[in-house]
């Protein structure tokens, strides 16, 4: 048996789950789809003494359209997002991001909430949450609160969740009509974690200039990173190749030291970030204004 020993609990209400988390504090770990936690247990990189399996709590498994965006319950599987007719028809960016995650055999188990709470800096859903200014609803001993995505990702695998809090819903705002988007990432094999990735959105004004742009870089820092300075450079500018290249260069230059590991050096990741950002902005600009 590979995982270290632990007690297993399967609460049937959010309140019960929060109670278990409060009782065991840092010794407890939430199990959702297990696609990140179980490998960590099998490799004994994590040794929680109590697992709190939230899959038996009813009513956490949903993907609903709300106010033009999506409300996704904590136990909604990534595959449910992928196969949702509403997501395919009206949330193309969310669908595209989902298709970058591992493989169908992982998405069948893996959850949206779990990916966001795990906060791997190279994962797609945390980057998407930051790009869309998502809201994360969490439940704790004192009740519920909502955390903005910008405040949620603290550092590597660390979020603003308190030890006794659990994520219960993620709200992804929809994109205004005519908004262009793009996801660019480089992975050694499709489905692997990205060595570097970029997500962008752009809308154009009547004169064809950039009305608003958003740019998120992931896999190149301790959290997904919103490129605020690059976004500011683009606002009001004509989205020509030179402007987009300058914004992409700024986003890459603003990165603190990206990770160096066996897969890529920090320099290589920074170069990738610049190239992918330029491509993402160009694609988002090309898609903007039309029926994107």
């Amino acid at each position, binding site marked *: *048996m*590979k*995982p*270290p*020993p*632990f*007690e*297993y609990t*399967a609460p049937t209400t959010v309140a019960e789950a929060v109670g278990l988390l409060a009782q065991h504090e840092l010794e407890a770990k939430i*199990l959702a789809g*297990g*696609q990140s936690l*179980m*490998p960590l*247990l*099998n*490799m004994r990189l994590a040794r929680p003494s109590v*697992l709190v*399996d939230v*899959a038996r709590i009813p009513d956490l498994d949903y993907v609903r359209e709300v106010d033009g965006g999506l409300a996704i319950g904590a136990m909604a599987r990534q*595959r449910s997002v992928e196969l949702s007719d509403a997501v395919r028809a009206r949330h193309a960016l969310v669908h595209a991001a989902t*298709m970058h995650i*591992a*493989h*169908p*055999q*992982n998405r*069948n*188990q893996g959850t949206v909430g779990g990916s966001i709470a795990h906060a791997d800096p190279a994962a797609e859903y945390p980057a998407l949450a930051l790009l869309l200014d998502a809201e994360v609803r969490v439940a704790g001993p004192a009740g519920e609160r909502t955390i903005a995505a910008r405040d949620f990702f603290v550092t590597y695998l660390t979020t603003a969740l308190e030890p006794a809090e659990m994520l219960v819903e993620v709200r992804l705002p929809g994109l205004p009509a005519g908004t262009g988007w793009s996801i660019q990432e480089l992975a050694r*094999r*499709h*489905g692997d974690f990205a060595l570097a990735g970029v997500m962008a959105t752009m809308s154009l004004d009547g004169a064809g200039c950039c009305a608003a742009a958003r740019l998120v870089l992931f896999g190149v820092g301790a959290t997904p990173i919103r490129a605020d300075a690059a976004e500011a450079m683009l606002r009001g500018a004509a989205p020509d190749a030179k402007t987009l290249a300058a914004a992409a260069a700024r986003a890459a230059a603003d990165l603190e030291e990206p990770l160096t590991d066996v897969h890529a050096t920090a320099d290589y990741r920074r170069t990738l970030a610049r190239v992918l950002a330029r491509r993402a902005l160009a694609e988002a600009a090309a898609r903007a204004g039309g029926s994107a």
Partner: protein
Amino acid sequence: MTPALRTVRLTVNGTPHEVAVEPRTTLVDLLRGPLGLTGTHVGCEHGVCGACTILWNGKAVRSCIMLAVQADGAEIATVEGLAQGGELHPIQQAFLEAHGLQCGFCTPGFLMSVTELLERCPDPSDDEIKDTLGGQICRCTGYQTIFKAVRLAAEKVAAARAGGGER
């Protein structure tokens, strides 16, 4: 301090089982150990290689990164349930005819993933086949023939259905 055993009730290939397991027991260890179903293989044990893929309530998942306790109440299908009455399942027959395997270690996982694919998409696109096969690693480098085997399997499954077979 060994955590208390938990009772897990699950159905595997139509047969109900009730087993007491340590909470940390993975589903694949339950299948291969107490249940004696060694057709499901264990490769990487962290959810990457796909050798351990089984169907959990009809969905292809990695049984090495799923706990047995998570499968309480579930219907599980493994490679042992494919052939019926000594006759290969059309998907297995297609892999045999199209040389969709060499050493065969990865094959149980491929077969279960393809079972889910053809259940959901009887006539899958090239991209849908690649998306499914992308989750399975074959180290004999047989992907081209595996791809052809899936095409052939789709034809065979469709023919079996059209022929009024029970599959």
